[in-house]
């Protein structure tokens, strides 16, 4: 009999523990901690895309740390809650809910576009301000309460075509892009559309997918045969590093040009392959200048060079700070959300990715630079 009671007690204890673990996992509502603004963001911290999520997290962390060390804003400290969403829309929805339970009052959305769309859909219901650093699909900033730091994919694609035509960087353009990636496919489509509109000849479109992103000899051979004098790479740094080193081995000596995703290609290619990157052009609002305070502080903190994801999220946190300063709002205000959202269209932020202003659409108004890689360093291109 006694033994039986023990068994039952044990079973009950086990169930309580399991439920308890779940509850703490959710986190309890962090009441009204008066002088703290909880900023919540999610991104892939594990899995295939984890480098983007980690960069966004670290960029935001650094900004939050700096702001708090400088005494906060309006007597309020910032607190960052960053959840893992594995770049998966399902996981992003529960990550958002976790952060909401933790008292999030301003969001950073999610790092990747697909995940961000589900996070933004939730945020729209809550009416909180969202400043998304890196979700570049157009629809991510569609709700009134969402603002964006990066360029949208179509904007970037169209702008690249425009610049190539205006600066006469190339006349026959080949494009190599990742068909399975929304960022890459989005830029490619806009680029090709714009090119047709302004009579820029696109001689070939070569696609790859995330299943076949290490060997590019087929695509490069096709580019070579097409007679292109410029290759446009609307892709991320890792694939670009493969493409550029392989192009050098195949003896393809054509001008290469990429978008903001190419930032970080020097680190990815490694020192041994620097010669393969010579003369490559980047059209980007951010590149890691050795003498910038942000790059120095980031290197001190994390030992790596910040990429555009880190820079975008660093700026996102400073945009939130600027909006708070402008509106004078504090988290305990009943109309905090409205004040913050209204303030976003009135501020001007001098960020590490350029000077930005926003209108009601939530899109940033900022410029992109053309930079060129010379001897493994970025220099401005004219």
């Amino acid at each position, binding site marked *: 009999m006694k033994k039986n009671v023990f068994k039952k007690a044990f079973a009950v204890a086990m169930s309580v523990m399991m439920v308890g673990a779940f509850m703490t996992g959710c986190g309890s509502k962090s009441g009204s901690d008066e002088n703290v603004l909880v900023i919540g963001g999610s991104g892939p911290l594990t899995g295939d895309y984890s480098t983007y999520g980690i960069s966004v997290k670290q960029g935001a962390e650094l900004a939050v740390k700096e702001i708090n060390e400088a005494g906060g804003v309006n007597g309020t400290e910032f607190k960052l809650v960053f959840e893992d969403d594995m770049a998966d829309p399902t996981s992003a929805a529960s990550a958002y*809910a976790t952060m909401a339970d933790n008292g999030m009052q301003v969001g950073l959305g999610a790092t990747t576009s697909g995940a961000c769309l589900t996070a933004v859909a939730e945020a729209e219901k809550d009416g909180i301000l969202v400043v998304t650093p890196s979700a570049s699909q157009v*629809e991510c900033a569609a709700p009134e309460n969402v603002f964006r730091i990066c360029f949208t994919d179509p904007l970037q694609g169209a702008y690249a075509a425009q610049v190539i035509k205006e600066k006469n960087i190339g006349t026959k353009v080949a494009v190599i892009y990742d068909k399975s990636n929304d960022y890459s496919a989005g830029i490619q489509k806009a680029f090709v559309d714009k090119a047709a509109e302004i009579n820029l000849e696109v001689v070939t479109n070569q696609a790859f997918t995330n299943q076949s992103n290490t060997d590019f000899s087929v695509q490069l051979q096709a580019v070579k045969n097409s007679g292109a004098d410029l290759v446009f790479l609307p892709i991320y740094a890792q694939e670009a590093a493969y493409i550029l080193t392989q192009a050098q081995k195949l003896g393809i000596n054509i001008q290469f040009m990429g978008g903001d995703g190419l930032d970080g290609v020097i680190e990815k290619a490694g020192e041994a392959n620097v010669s393969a990157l010579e003369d490559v052009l980047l059209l980007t609002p951010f590149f890691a200048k050795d003498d910038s305070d942000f790059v120095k502080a980031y290197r001190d903190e994390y030992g790596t060079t910040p990429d555009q994801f880190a820079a975008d999220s660093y700026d996102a946190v400073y945009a939130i700070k600027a909006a708070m300063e402008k509106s004078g709002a504090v988290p305990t205000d009943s109309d905090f959300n409205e004040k913050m959202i209204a303030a976003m269209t009135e501020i001007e932020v001098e960020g590490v990715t350029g000077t930005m202003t926003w209108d009601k659409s939530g899109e940033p108004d900022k410029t992109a630079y053309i930079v060129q890689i010379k001897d493994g360093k970025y220099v401005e291109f004219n």
Partner: protein
Amino acid sequence: MGLNEIKAKKNDLITYGIVIILFAIVAVMVATGMATRHMQSILVPVCINIILAVSLNLVVGFLGELSLGHAGFMSVGAYAGCLFAIYTADILPAAVRFPLAMIIGGVVAAVFGVLIGIPVLRLSGDYLAIVTLAAGEIIRSVIINLGFTGGAAGLKGTPQDSNFIIGFVVVLITMFVIMNFVNSKHGRAIKAMRDNKIAAESCGVNLNSYKLLAFVMGAFFAGVAGVLYGHNYSILTADVFDYNRSIEILVIVVLGGIGSIRGSIISAIIITILPEALRGFADYRMLIYAIALIVMMLLNSSEKGREILSKLNFRSLGSLLKNRGAKKEVQGNDE
């Protein structure tokens, strides 16, 4: 025979009871505000995984064929149902549109089940597993390359009609259909086929048509689960339906016990909740999830583990395991 039927009925009733009680507990928690938002956000995913696991169990557990293309059927259903919902969003009210979308998603997935099933089911064992895996990947690649599915950017604008109550109702329907099917004449034919093909054939069981029937039925419910999934989020991307997803569903089925519907339901709940419950561990989350999975599998498969579980009075898992033993006896009797 009659005794076995009564046993099976009783068994099914217990399963319904567990599901309904769990639903009632959660419903009360939601109504009284005890459930955090985080908990509420995973209720629909739990329902989706239950439907997927139960329907895959029909193929893996009762038909005895290893299918790794379940996520492929899920994606076909999801896209079909969501496209239908998007185009009829202005015409039909949600109460008509959503059930219709689910039926359409299920039927389209079932059609793909037939198309893929006819050639694939000529194979068995490892070969079948690999071919279904390939079929799932083909579906995913095609979806990425088609224009009307939104390609890599995903399909947007599906009305968000999914909720926990609807998910629960669909779970009940799925359970009802599959459990009755398994206990029916056709179900017995399928189980007989699994246990001894030659004996079954000599008794007049048409192997190919029954094989196809079970496969298509599994595909239908995978499609329905896909529609439920698509209506729960504002974006649908093909990436989430890769082979990892198929394997995740298989993991649920194996953990719950192959051929046990109740086991599938319980393990679907555990597997869905586990990574979310581990959020507190931050960076170590997926590591701990993987370790927990290994431990559970070991515990589940060892004799000692079963003993411990049943000794601990762990009703759900314990009786499930006993139940599995009982099933073997039943099969023995049948032969």
